[in-house]
C-alpha cells in the first residue's frame, strides 16, 4: 500500500513538473499577476485586479515594453529595481522569503506526523483494552427472536450515520 502511495506521489510530481512550464498565456497577464498596482491611493491590489487610472496607464506602459522586446522577467526586475521588492505580488523564493512558502507545508507535514502518532496511540490503547472487556458474546447460531428483529428494525430506522 505504501509503495502504491509513493508511486502515485512520484507520478503526480512528474505530471505537474511536465505540465507546469508549458504556460503560453498572455505575457501581459503574467506581468499583471506578478506585480502590484502602484497607485497613489495604495489600493493594495494586484495589477490584474485593479481598475484605477494608474493601473490602466501601467498596463499600457508594460505592453509597450513587451512590444519593444523585453521579457516578462526583465520587466519584473526593472520594476523591482525602481520600486523595491514590495512591488512584487508574492514573496520571492529565496532567502528569508522562502519561509513564506515552506512554512505552511512544513506545518502540515509536522501535523500529519502528529496525527499519525495520535492514531497509532489510540489504536494501541484499544488493542490493550480489548481482552479486558470479557462480555459474553452472542451465539451466532441462536435464532433471532421476532421481538429482537422488530427492535433492530426500529433502531435501523432511527440510525443516523
Amino acid at each position, binding site marked *: 500500500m505504501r509503495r502504491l502511495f509513493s508511486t502515485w506521489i512520484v507520478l503526480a510530481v512528474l505530471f505537474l513538473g511536465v505540465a507546469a512550464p508549458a*504556460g503560453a498565456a498572455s505575457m501581459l497577464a503574467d506581468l499583471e499577476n506578478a506585480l502590484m498596482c502602484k497607485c497613489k491611493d495604495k489600493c493594495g491590489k494586484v495589477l490584474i485586479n485593479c481598475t484605477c487610472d494608474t493601473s490602466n496607464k501601467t498596463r499600457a506602459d508594460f505592453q509597450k515594453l513587451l512590444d519593444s522586446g523585453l521579457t516578462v522577467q526583465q520587466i519584473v526586475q526593472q520594476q523591482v529595481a525602481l520600486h523595491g521588492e514590495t512591488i512584487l505580488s508574492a514573496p520571492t523564493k529565496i532567502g528569508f522569503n522562502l519561509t513564506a512558502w515552506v512554512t505552511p*507545508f512544513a*506545518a502540515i507535514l509536522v501535523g500529519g506526523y502528529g496525527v499519525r502518532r495520535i492514531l497509532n496511540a489510540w489504536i494501541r490503547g*484499544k488493542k490493550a483494552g480489548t481482552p479486558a472487556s470479557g462480555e459474553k458474546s452472542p451465539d451466532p447460531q441462536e435464532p433471532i427472536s421476532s421481538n429482537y428483529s422488530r427492535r433492530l428494525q426500529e433502531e435501523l430506522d432511527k440510525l*443516523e*450515520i
Partner: protein
Amino acid sequence: MNDLGEFALMVALATALYGCIGYVLAARGNRLDLYLSADKTPVIVWGCVVVASIALWKAFMVDDFSLEYVWAYSNRDLDVFYKVSSFWGGQKGSLLFWTLLLTSYMVVVYFQNRKRNAKLVPYALVVMLTITLFFLVLLNFSTNPFERIPLPPEDGRGLNPLLQNYWMVIHPPTLYLGYVGFTVPFAFALAALITKNLDDSWIRLTRKWTLISWFFLCMGNLFGAHWAYLELGWGGYWAWDPVENAAFMPLIIATAYLHSVMIQEKKDMMKVWNMSLILLTFVMTIFGTFITRSGLIQSVHTFDEATLGYYFLAFLGVIIVICVSLIASRLPLLRSKNELDSFLSRESSFLFNNLVLLGIAFATFWGTIFPIVSEAVRGIKITVGPPFYNQVNVPIGLVLLALIGIGPVIAWRRATWAHLRKNFFKPVLIALVFGVGLWIWALPSNRAEVYSFIAFVLCVFVMSTIIIEFLKGTLARSHLHEETPLQALGSLVWRSKSRYGGYIVHVGVVFIFAGIAGSQAYGTHIEQHVKVGESLQIRDYTLKYERLGFIQENPTKTRAVAQLGVYQNGRRVWTGQPEKEFYKGQNQPVSEVDVRSTWKEDLYIILADFKEDDSATLKIYLNPMVSWIWMGAWIIAFGTTVSVWPDRLEARRRLERMKVQDAVFSPAQE
C-alpha cells in the same frame, strides 16, 4: 433622539458591567437575590442597544448631519435603501451593528434557556455580557456614533460609491451574523470550562448555533465574492485580500470543528481538540476584526479610521490568555478515553480532514501576517498576494476535496479493505473514466489547467460517492418499506436530516470547487478600444459596440452607459450595458459591469474608458462556470436548512442521552 441614543449606550455599558459583576458574585457567594437582579441585565442591555440603533437609523433617515457619522456616510440624495445600510458603512456604525447583533443573540440565548441548563447558561451569559461590555466601552469612549459636529453642514459627504450596491445591504449583515454567532458556542465552551461541566452538553446546546453561524459566515464569504465580482469590475471574485482572509479563516476552522465534533458526539473522544477549535474560531473572528480596524495591514476593505488596533489586540490577548489557561487547568477533566479500532476508519479520515482544513487556515494566516513578520525581520513589508495563496492553498484544497469524497463513505471504527473496495470501486471507476475523457477532450497545457483537471476529476469522484450513498439508502428504504423511489428518498433525508443535509452541503462545496476550477483555468479576456459600430470577438461571441449614452440620475450621480449587441453564431443573444458612474466629489468613477450569466460561462463586460467621440475602451471577460459557485451557495443553504431543521427523532435520541448522562437540566426544574 441623538441624546437618547447616546444615553442608551451609557446605560447599556453600566448595565452590562453590573450584569457581569452581579452574575459572578451571585455564583461565588450563592446569592439568589443578586442572581435574580443580574439575570435581567441581558434584556436591559439589548433594549438599550436597540434604542441607540434606532436613534442612529433615524438620524440617517432625516439627514441629521449634526452627527459626524451621518455626515461622513450619507447625503441628501442617497437612496433610502442605502441610508439603511449606511448604518454599517463606517467603523462606528459597524461596531454598533455588531453590538446590536451580539446582544440580540444574547437575548435569544437568555429566553431559550430561561428554565433550563442552569449550570451553564449564567456563565455563558457572563461571557457574552463581557464581550458586549468591550464593544460598549469602544462605542462610549472611542468610536461614539453620536459624536456631534458643532456647526452642522448642509449636506453630507455621501456613501462610498462602491458601497452603493444592493449587496451592501446583504453581505455585511450576513457576515456579521456569522462572526457574532460564534460568540454563542464560544461562550458556552468557556462556561463549560469554568464550571467544569465538560461532558458534551455544551456541544449539544450549541450545535444549531454553530451550524447557523457557520452557514451565515459561509454565505457572508460567498456574498462578498459575488459583490466583488459585480462591483469591483476586475472580472474576479476572490482576491485573497487580508480582510477576505480574515473572514475565510474562522469559516475554515469552524468547518474543522463541525466535523471533529461528530467524533466527540459519537465516540466521546477529542474533547481538548474540539474545545480548542471552537475557541480558536472565536479568536479568529476577533483577529479578523483586528485586521479590519487596526490599519496594520493594507487592504481595500479596511475602515478609513482604522485606529482601534490596540483595543482589539489587547482584547485578543486577554481572550487567548483566558482560553489557554482554562484549557490547561482543565486538561485532566478533558482527557477522554481515546481508542480507535483501526487506522482505516472514519475517525481517522476526519482527523486528516481537520489537518488539511487547519493547514489551509494556517497557510492563509501565515500569508496574511507574513508582511508584518517580514517587516520585523528584514525591515521590508513584503506583499503577499493571490499568486502565493493560489500556489499554496490550491494543492491543499485538492486534498481536502478528495477527503470530502472519502470521509463519509468509510465506516466508523473500522473499515476493511473489502469494505473500501466495495464502497470506492464505482466512484473511482467513474472518476477515472471521466478523467480519461477530459484528458482527451482538453489536454491541460499549464499549471492552472492541470490543477483544474485534477479538481474536475475529484469533483466527479465526490459527486459519485454522494449520489451512490443516496441511491443505496433510497433503494434500501424503497425495498424495506415498499415506497416509491421518490417517497423513499424523501423519508431517507427526513429521517436523517443531519447526515443527508451534510451530504447536500458537500454537493454545494463540489459545485464551488468546480466553479473555481473552471473559471480559474479556462477563462480569457480581451481589452480593446472601439468606435461606435465596430465589433470585438471573444471565442464564439461577437460584440458590436452600438452607442454611448449619458444619464443624469440625480444632482450627484451621472451614468455613462455603453450599449453592445452580443451575437453568438450570427444570432443576437443579448444586449450588454456596462456603465461608468460618476459621483460628485469622488475622484474615481465607478464601473458597473454587465454580465450575461449561463451555467456554462459568464460574458462579463466592463466599460473601462471612453472618449469625447464616444469611442470606448472595453474589457471583456469570458469566465467559465462562475455561476456554479453561486449555485453552490444556494445548495449549501438548502443543505444547512435540512441539517438544522427540527428533528423529532433526534430530539428523542438526545433526550434519552440527556436522561442517561444527567447533565444539564436545571436544579430548579428538578
